[in-house]
């Protein structure tokens, strides 16, 4: 193959492409979910070379989670904001329950994606071993 530098760059590029492609597939597989739409939107933005990562970042969730204590509330809010950042499209979700819904769906989709990719990697790894051993 190429030199290490080139190989690494190519590797990174490929892995990034694979990752985005996987995300795309993931998003397409769960149609109608908010996070999938946000993911597709984000990908389209990236493709068209617009790095607008802060589309609606200001829409932070405001509602309280039903915990009465003030410091607990703040902690919970902080965590909820973190979750918002993790889940694609989470910043636009205002209500906690919607956010949790999207989170659950996103987690399931991620699990499936991981298992699919892992299966693929296992398969290809098997091939590689065979090729190396032949």
């Amino acid at each position: 193959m190429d030199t290490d530098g080139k190989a690494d760059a190519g590797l990174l590029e490929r892995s990034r492409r694979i990752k985005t492609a996987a995300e795309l597939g993931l998003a397409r597989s769960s149609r109608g979910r908010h996070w999938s739409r946000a993911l597709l939107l984000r990908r389209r933005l990236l493709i068209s070379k617009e790095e607008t990562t802060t589309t609606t970042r200001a829409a932070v969730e405001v509602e309280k989670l039903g915990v009465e204590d003030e410091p607990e509330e703040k902690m919970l809010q902080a965590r909820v904001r973190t979750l918002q950042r993790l889940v694609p499209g989470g910043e636009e979700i205002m209500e906690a329950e919607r956010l949790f819904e999207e989170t659950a769906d996103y987690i399931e989709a991620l699990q499936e994606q991981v298992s699919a990719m892992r299966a693929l990697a296992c398969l290809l790894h098997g091939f590689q071993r065979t090729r190396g051993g032949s």
Partner: protein
Amino acid sequence: MENDAFWGSNWHSTVAKRATSMSSAAAGQSLPCLLNLDWKQPPMSNDADLETALSSLVSSQSSHLAASDGAEMRALGGRLGTICNSGEISLVAQLHSAHSSCYSTPLNSPPKPNHSARDHPVQGRGGFPGPANPSPGGQFMPLSADPWFAEGAARLPRGGGMSSSSFAGQLGLLPETPGKLSRASSGKSLTGSRMGATENGNESQVLGAALMEMEMRSRFRASLTSEASEPGNGREESSIEEASSLRGASDSNARKRKAVAGKGKGKEAPSLYSATNPANVRLNSLSFLLLLNSLQFHICKTGELQIFQVQMTEENSDAKRYKPGEINAVVKMETEQNGDVGGEPRKEDDDKVPEPPKDYIHVRARRGQATDAHSLAERVRREKISKRMKFLQDLVPGCNKVTGKAVMLDEIINYVQSLQRQVEFLSMKLATLNPQLNNMDNLILKQMYQEHGTMLQPVYPSEMASAQYPYPLQGIETSGLESQLVNPPSRTVQLPPLYGLSDATSQASSMNYKSLTKRVLLLSQLGDFCEDDLQSVAQIVFRHNQETAFSASFSRPNASKSDEN
């Protein structure tokens, strides 16, 4: 021949013959023969039995299981129980690298499946989020897959034992395989449920296990595959997928490998994906009815049951999350029949009198709580949130013991981050493993397709049709691995123009084609013995590359795959 060298002595003779015949066959029709191995094969030696059972497991889905649901599944479950018993490690090692000699030791000597099954998750966990290096990753991959397959195999006996009326039969099956399952699924949720079942003390735990079983089966049936369009196929595939998804979570985070089951209380049995097959829905609903009945008998009528029933009826109205299906109807019927849950918007109703559920989300006011409109709405909101959090708790492995929203949220955040990191790591690994693979979206889609059933159907034909795009766009729209597997640019005369790769990749394509040919061959052989999603990958590839690809690939002499790269 090279094939024999791969599998060595552990290959089942019939299968080996078929494999070799397969590799030399020119038609794609022999592939279904290979995949449809008769799983009622005569008993043989231990290893061979494992292989045959597994091959029959993965191959019989397309043909046999549809015939008789209960009996064959039970027999299959029995076979799988033997698999679990007698060394799933060797089997999985065989799966992943039967052609490699480094796994000959576990292959030949599976003396202590207990310890190795328990050790492997640890190893798998430790090794998985490592660098994107194929060889150590490859070392860990089969190890990490061990509990996966073990779980998937372990779950099948339970799923097999469940028939439409055998709720007690399912419970009876639970003590049947405690030993096996405790071995196979150590550290996972099954252990907890099994222990609860065998101890026979905590009925709610048993029912919780049954509920989890229920939910998993509903997930199984919800994810019917399309290739065989039969319930058994989807059941097994999604069971493996389910187990693999759970394993995927546990592999990267050791502390999350705790018991998930035992949720006899607020468990939501109809999960996100309600069953699509009417037969399975009926099965589902029947068992679900039984479950509900037993729940109401055995679980004390505290607030939890109320929440549970609130969840049930809320799902009738909350169609965003749960696809409205017959499950919800059944639930509605059940709750109406029991007459226990009910209510109208709590503007005026504030006592515990049950009423039939309407379209509104009804909440039962507990004793001593304020009942004005504002606080009622507040309480409704809070209960919704807690319900979602419970669902998330079920999703994230190892979160039942965690109480409190903050810690729960922390766990969820960690889990999502770990999953995302896993995706990144896997994409890096795939990039190293497969230099030709440029995108996987179609492949992943098809994986999802296998799991979700018909959801992806509108997407897929459009992607097949869009294969004529130039390469940069094609990288997005069309298949990655598939097109590379199929398309020899030097031989485009035979292949349909659907999979036309542009000249960007045609340079190394001749060499790639050899490797791809080899891959196709290996896929055809691995497809029997790999897990369901690998087989689904293989079947995906084969389904779309049937005659032309095979004739193109097999027209080359087998000596061509001696060595490349």
